[in-house]
């Protein structure tokens, strides 16, 4: 299963064992330093008021990431970490709100959401951006939300992501169209996205 999923929608998803028990809920999604894939999740307790728990869920321990639950084999999949470490990792691995610029120096926008592949992949596929007004045409009074593919040559420095200039040619504001295009490129075996 390689369906695209929005990372903001993963927050509050239950972490369910194959035995059918909920062990925690997702708090934050943590990405690696080069923004290539998910490295893990920070967690909250089972109830609304239980707050963060001093445990992490590393990506290798995830059995499958679905639209309604993060499946793990058992309770032993959770790894004990101090809360301070979990918070630090979550802050470092957070992409939401980061600036995106092209390698030519043009501002593309700010990351509103991140699209990842579900299932066992966890690969970062695209960003949903609040587009800079130079990127999209049309009314300047309207806020534009667009999808930009991650691209192979993305580099990250601090809170700024640098995408190749040609990646902005694939900008679209409709998710089904973006998904179809991404799927078509994948099927042709030339890599998922430019």
């Amino acid at each position, binding site marked *: 299963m390689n369906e695209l999923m929005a990372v903001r929608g993963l927050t509050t998803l239950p972490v369910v064992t194959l035995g*059918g*028990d909920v062990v925690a809920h997702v708090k934050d999604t943590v990405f690696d330093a080069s923004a290539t894939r998910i490295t893990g999740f920070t967690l909250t307790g089972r109830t609304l008021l239980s707050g963060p728990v001093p445990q992490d869920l590393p990506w290798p321990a995830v059995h499958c990431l679905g639209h309604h*639950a*993060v*499946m793990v084999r058992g309770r032993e999949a959770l790894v004990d970490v101090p809360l301070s470490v979990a918070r630090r990792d979550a802050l470092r691995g957070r992409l939401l709100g980061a600036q995106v610029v092209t390698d030519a120096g043009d501002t593309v926008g700010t990351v509103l959401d991140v699209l990842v592949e579900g299932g066992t992949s966890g690969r970062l596929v695209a960003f949903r951006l609040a587009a800079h007004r130079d990127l999209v045409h049309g009314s300047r009074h309207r806020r534009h939300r667009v999808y930009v593919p991650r691209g192979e040559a993305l580099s990250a420095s601090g809170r700024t992501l640098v995408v190749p200039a040609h990646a902005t040619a694939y900008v679209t504001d409709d998710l089904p169209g973006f998904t179809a295009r991404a799927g078509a490129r994948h099927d042709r075996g030339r890599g998922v996205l430019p």
Partner: protein
Amino acid sequence: MLFSRVRGLPVLAPGGADHLGTVRALTVDAASRTVTHVRVRRGRLRGEIVLALGAVEAAGPDGLIVRPPDGGPSATPHHDLLGSRVLTECGEERGTVLDAAFDPADGRIEAVLTTFGEVPGDRLLGLGDHALVVRSRRAHHL
């Protein structure tokens, strides 16, 4: 035999003299795909007893004949199969459980009927406090 048919049946001691109560629920071990216990409600103020399926001597549409319980209350964890949420091992919801068919002789679950269709018993993985987890056959189908 269907879970929905068993629920509410009278539970009798051998000979039919002693009425122990009515069937409230069946406890399922989804990992081994079997019914392990029968939970019998004895009355409004008398609580319930838990009987191992091996204590059931005969099961029919008119009731269950069981050997009288000899031990104390069993501490087996119980989650109701009927009405539980169905989740594939890929984390996709597939409706809720409507009913299930099992073999009263050995307790083996033959099939589970969900709001999305029938799931063969050999695809059950676990039943917990959140959901019944079933093995995915294909990405988008039960």
